[in-house]
């Protein structure tokens, strides 16, 4: 269970060194992406001027305040509250996000499925779990909204955040075929019959 400080973007080797139960703190850059963003980019072929290669994306749609563009607010947005949404809905986008855009990390909550795990193993990626519902804390790790693209999808735009000490995040799915979610699911399945029996439900 090692801890890594990673300045984004990262190389495949940096991702491959991570194992489940390791922790990671990200530095510098994080992209925000969500359902509509990925539907438009990956189903409808919309392009972005951002280079996502080697980067981390977080499943988010933030609360922001529109402000005058300035040095402090280069995108014309001040962060209000930025948190993380449930990743499972975006399961089918993991592989194209990696093959078409070179994304290496997904930061999310609740975990993803076998398709994502396979993509992480084949292409060199990992899922970094954040504690869902702790957005007030997460917002303190975000220094600035540096840029935004596909903003007609607001709040589901493609956001570029400047981050500092973003974490610790838990490596919950690694590039070696390990997933804490698969392990927990198997454990829960094993307990299910006993729990039901304790309730007088026999199958």
């Amino acid at each position: 269970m090692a801890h890594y400080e990673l300045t984004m973007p990262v190389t495949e080797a940096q991702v491959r060194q991570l194992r489940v139960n390791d922790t990671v703190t990200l530095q510098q850059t994080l992209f925000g992406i969500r359902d509509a963003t990925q539907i438009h980019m990956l189903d409808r072929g919309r392009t972005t001027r951002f280079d996502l290669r080697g980067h981390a994306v977080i499943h988010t749609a933030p609360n922001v305040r529109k402000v005058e563009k300035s040095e402090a607010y280069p995108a014309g947005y001040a962060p209000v509250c930025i948190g993380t949404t449930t990743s499972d809905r975006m399961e089918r986008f993991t592989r194209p996000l990696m093959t078409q855009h070179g994304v290496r990390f997904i930061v999310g909550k609740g975990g993803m499925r076998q398709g994502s795990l396979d993509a992480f193993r084949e292409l060199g990626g990992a899922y970094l779990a954040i504690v869902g519902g702790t957005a007030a804390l997460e917002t303190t790790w975000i220094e600035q909204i540096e840029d935004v693209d596909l903003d007609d999808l607001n709040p589901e735009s493609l956001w570029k955040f400047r981050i500092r000490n973003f974490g610790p995040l838990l490596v919950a799915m690694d590039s070696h075929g390990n997933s804490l979610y698969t392990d927990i699911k198997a454990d829960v399945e094993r307990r299910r019959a006993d729990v039901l029996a304790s309730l007088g439900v026999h199958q």
Partner: protein
Amino acid sequence: MKIDLPAVEEAAKELYIRALKVLPPDIKGGFARLTETETAPRAQGILATMVRNIQVAEEHENLLCQDTGVPIYNIAIGRGVEVDGHDLKQAIRKGCERATREHPLRSSVVHPLTRRNEHTSCGAEVPVIHIDFTPEPNKLTIQMIPKGSGSENNSFLKMAIPAEGIAAIKEFVIDCVINAGGKTCPPTIVGVGLGGTSDLCVALAKRAATRPLGSHCADPEGAALEKELSDAVNRLGVGPQGLGGDSTAFAVHIELAATHITMNPIAVNMQCHSARRASATVTPDGITYGF
């Protein structure tokens, strides 16, 4: 008591913002109880982060969670309250819009087909407004619940049959909790609706999921089943964030209604650990805020 509608509009705005920022004391108490009993180190760490977040939100006067949810307003009108019902609903809607624009808040509400976001947290039939009547004199209460989607997306209805009995209820609740896994942001309040028609059953599940911790089903049989299921779900090992541990749910809550001789409906609606709600009570003395 005549209701001052601009004051209701202001309260509707204030309630949305308050609910998003400060968790009710019963939910904080729920965290304290789970923190004491949790045995898995990873789960303890996650619970500690959640508790830290509650403090950070209060210190920074920020939202607890980025999900501003689907806004729900539950109105209870007491005896002797004079108000135009239509105007009351309009005032609530206006307050909800104003909270979204003036704070500002992320509008999480879109048209179901075009996915268009009006950036007001409002749309067709939203905010959801429920109006009920109580015998209490000269009192109007407005409860606001921003219902997050992570938990709302894990809502289930099963039209079981009488021959399947209570066993079907128990199995369905257990399997809903298992299938939801970490997607609902556990620890959750598992709301269970029993009986009624299909729509009433689902509404009861929501009422159960948003009831304060420590409250019990008014029906003694329902209350006993709540206790039994509350203990059972926390032996499943789902844990906080679905990453294992004892703290899968703060509690299982049940609300029930009579049903048809041929029916045994079961609905499950969950509330995430950011179990937010706020309320305002309007009396002749003015407005007081609470949870």
